[in-house]
């Protein structure tokens, strides 16, 4: 039994804006399947007393004071932008979403 189907990989690729050929889909579906099956094996040995972990270090409640500080210089930002116009980032046109 596979842990991930080719159709699921195709869907994920679309969400991630990756264009994969049929060969690539087969290739990555196989690789992802191996990874997921390995993770599933680890899951088998976890007991109910081990909670799922999202953060490896047990730290909570890290906050900063609400004090505003100057950010980057605009010329500096513009220099790093692929395209810049009228003090703004220029991006390609956006289709059918609003």
């Amino acid at each position: 039994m596979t842990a991930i189907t080719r159709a699921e990989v195709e869907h994920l690729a679309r969400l991630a804006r990756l264009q994969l050929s049929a060969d690539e889909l087969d290739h990555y579906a196989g690789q992802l399947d191996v990874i997921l099956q390995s993770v599933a094996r680890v899951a088998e040995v976890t007991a109910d007393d081990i909670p799922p972990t999202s953060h490896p270090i047990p730290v909570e409640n890290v906050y900063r004071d609400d004090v505003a500080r100057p950010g980057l210089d605009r010329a500096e930002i513009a220099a790093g932008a692929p395209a810049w116009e009228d003090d703004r980032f220029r991006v390609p046109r956006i289709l059918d979403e609003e």
Partner: protein
Amino acid sequence: MSTAHDTVDFDEALAMFEPVLGIETHVELGTNSKMFCSCATAFGADANTQVCPVCLGLPGSLPVVNRTAVESTIRMGLALNCSIAPWCRFARKNYFYPDMPKDYQVSQYDEPLCFNGYLDVTVETDDGPRVFRVEIERVHMEEDTGKLTHAGGTTGRIHGADYSLVDYNRAGIPLIEIVTKPIVGTGVLAPQVAKAYVAELRDLMRALGVSDVRMEEGSLRCDVNVSLNLPGAEWGTRSETKNVNSLRSVERAVHSEIERQAAVLTTGGRVIQETRHFHEDTGRSTSGRSKEQAEDYRYFPEPDLVPVAPSEEWIEELRGTLPELPALKRARLQAAWGIGEHELQTIVNAGALELVEAAIADGVDPAAARKWWTGELARIANDRDLELTDLPVTSAQIRRVEELVADGSLNDKLARQVFDGVIAGEGDVDAVVAGRGLAVVSDDSSLLAAIDEALAAQPDVAEKIRGGKVQAAGAIVGAVMKTTRGQADAAKVRALLLERLGVSE
């Protein structure tokens, strides 16, 4: 309203169907700095001057949570009678859109900071005020997105635009999202309940000081979900109307969506689950993206931020900072001012409660404070599409106008012009009076001259009055008011007129 064939009249619609509402409200918190970085949050700053590596999503940058934003969210949750999560995380909501440079928005997914609360709202009905309890599903924290300007093309809108320009000043400003549970049982009051709920939320946030809620600056935005079902049947398919950014629009969006869905359903159609866009100019919405394909944001816990785990002590400390909540405050002021529920609602609906309270505290006569703030000033604000609180009118100016009315220098009509001038920036009360030449004509001889002129112009009316038809005097008084451009005291004109003709009341 049902002039178009694609809607069913509102009352007809709700004679057949029951509405179910759901409202998601996004509010920008009034913090000094952003949610996850120290950039400033001032509205109207030059484009891309309040940005840093964190809110620009540059590699290697790390976010840190703004403590005040967490506290504001908890305080809001407490004011909404919510439970506060003892432990919760942020999550990444992944999507490709240039309003977020990271290609994800940091939000909360299945672990909101506050959940299961309620807010009671009051609406006016023919049978007096009625209270609805709106249940709150959740209050969670997230960050606002950048602002896009669509350039090129012919329309200036996204369709047909050649490219877009992005200003990331707004990206990362703390937002709270407040989501209701389904609101049922409102019937024809659905639009008013929706409006009253958003108004109450706004007042609550202002009272808490967590946001100044400037709707015209987009600091409060609503998505309104509406569905219709036959009585006793399962709930219908809902639509979600976005861009609903004023109290009036909330009311209109619910109203028009009920009419639209009823038309679809009564002609044998099917309501599609979709996003609709609300247009302020027409008060109607147009179809947007279909939601047939469920959105797939691939939420996962934000690895760069550690969990938020507010202690009992912290929560209780914050509970201790809650001010008098608006509903209690209204009850207190109503009693203190000795006014009825209806008059109170008029003041509340005009958004004038705090203004009236402040004016009275500043020594303005209570009746005058209520009269001006709910009357002429509210009308001027409405005409100019401003919030009442944005009118540059001070208590001292109201006091001065009242003094001038009391000593007979101004009448109500002229007083309105004075406020109009003050708001138009023509100076203080006395400056406007002088500048516009506004003063009641109290000089008897010039009034008598105007009366004689009016009598000569309307001899038949003059004859009627002489014959004892005192009610005909109105025509002459009106003519005199017109020639004096409203600058006369109507009661005085009437008295002089009757004296002139030797008639008594």
